[in-house]
């Protein structure tokens, strides 16, 4: 079939010419016009708290419309979300547990970490308040009172960001190795589940404000101790971080798309969506990616001295 072959060869020649023209039009060779991301799918592993509040849906719709891509959100606890990223099964991770994030970055799995927003943790519980902690501004003191009064405390018990923080507060309160009494229950589930359980059984729990507000219809729990959103103690601050999975470790991840997502969320547009997101008229998250004095600590593990931990 000589005719066909000639046609084919002509086609190849033409294609090469067009390809080269494309290169020269860019003003030289080896110019990277950035990753093509249209039509690709980003896998985001994130925590149940961002997911259940509905904020991510808003952000993802805007991002998908902007870039013509799809975002698959896998809601897990922070521990599981980071594990999913570690094995390269997601492209980008959004969590809220600085200690776990730091470890992840120090191991080289996560790169280009940015802080995107914060809200705060609150101690919620039965309106009767048997441990008499209401109105206090010391989370550790409140935990001590809960323990001393043998009031039920429901823990996430799932290695999530909230659970990590809860254990840190218990440690401050003098319970280093989980030497709790009968009053301490591990639910082993998402924040929503724990809020429901706490409401049903009349105990206390540590929750993030976002989930509590988005579930205010489903529980009759009251806020007893609040965090920095209402000028409470810093130990109840809840910052959310996001990072891309290192493509040098997992060459299968979609790094270009992950960075586009991080860029979008930390842009004016993304931050405005976060600021404008309300549930029941209350703002859930406070953007913090754009500040007058840039926070350089957000990019590296805390206490990092610049040494190469990979060598």
């Amino acid at each position: 079939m000589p005719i066909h072959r000639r046609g084919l060869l002509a086609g190849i020649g033409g294609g090469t010419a067009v390809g080269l023209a494309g290169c020269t039009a860019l003003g030289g060779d080896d110019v990277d016009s950035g990753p093509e991301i249209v039509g690709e799918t980003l896998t985001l592993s994130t925590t149940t708290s961002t997911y259940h509040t509905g904020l991510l849906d808003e952000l993802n719709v805007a991002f998908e419309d902007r870039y013509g891509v799809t975002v698959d959100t896998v809601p897990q606890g922070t521990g599981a979300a980071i594990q999913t990223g570690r094995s390269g099964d997601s492209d980008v991770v959004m969590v809220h547990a600085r200690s776990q994030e730091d470890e992840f970055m120090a191991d080289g799995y996560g790169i280009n970490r940015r802080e995107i927003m914060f809200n705060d943790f609150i101690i919620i519980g039965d309106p009767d308040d048997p441990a008499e902690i209401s109105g206090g501004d010391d989370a550790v003191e409140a935990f001590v009172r809960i323990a001393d009064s043998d009031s039920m405390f429901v823990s996430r018990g799932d290695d999530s960001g909230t659970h990590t923080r809860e254990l840190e507060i218990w440690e401050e309160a003098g319970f280093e190795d989980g030497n709790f009494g009968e009053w301490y229950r591990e639910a082993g589930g998402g924040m929503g589940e724990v809020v429901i359980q706490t409401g049903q059984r009349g105990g206390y729990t540590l929750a993030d404000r976002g989930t509590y507000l988005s579930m205010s219809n489903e529980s009759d729990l009251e806020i007893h101790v609040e965090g920095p959103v209402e000028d409470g103690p810093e130990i109840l601050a809840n910052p959310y971080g996001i990072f891309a999975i290192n493509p040098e470790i997992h060459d299968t991840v979609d790094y270009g798309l992950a960075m586009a997502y991080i860029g979008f969320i930390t842009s004016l547009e993304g931050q405005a969506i976060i600021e404008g997101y309300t549930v029941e008229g209350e703002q859930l998250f406070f953007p913090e990616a754009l500040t007058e004095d840039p926070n350089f600590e957000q990019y590296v593990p805390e206490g990092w001295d610049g040494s190469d931990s990979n060598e």
Partner: protein
Amino acid sequence: MPLGLPIHAPLIVEFPFEWNYIRSIIEVSLYVSVTAVVLSTLVSLPVALLVGFKEFPGKTLLTSIINTGMGFPSVVVGLLVLFTVSNEGPLGSWDLVFTPEAMIMSQFVLAAPVITGVCLAAVSSVEQNVRDAAYAMGGTRFDVALVTIKEARYGIATAVLAGFGRAISEVGGVLIVGGNIAGSDGTSYTRTLTTAIQLEAQQGRFETAMILGAILVVLVLIVNAIVVRLGNGGGRYE
């Protein structure tokens, strides 16, 4: 979005109630479970015929593997499939983790032993003289197999049903390998009826959970009805 109904409110739900969301969940559930059961049946039926008719070394072992598989915990199956399809697993390059196809794999592994086991019982109960008669009439092995399937069709239908029931009603496996993903436009990608119920209950949206639960039960009933009719050949089985 929360419905704004307290838990003790009467279950008055206005349709269309997040209908797109619910419809896409039903579609994913059926796609995953029906595909898994069809594939399982294609593998299980020949295996059941083989084990039922032939003597071969390792037959006892195979039978006990089938019997163990019938009761194998779905969460463990999900975990094993996750290790297989995860980026770091042997099939990592196939990029299957958090996809409906990974869920099909998990449900295939769950349903196949059940379908094989029940088919085996059905096939073994076909009278020896029926098979002898088929041979006597000059039937090939294939013909005999067909006659056996025809005779055992009711039992085979039961097997398919049991497999489908196990597939569509399990939570743990699909949750682990599928990731319970729904798009931001509110349509399901790997969210099935069971994992959606789990998620809704977790968030205290018990009305939606109840609706999804009712739909799940109705689906199983419908599939039951269809399969039983097929098994009966449209008539009464005596």
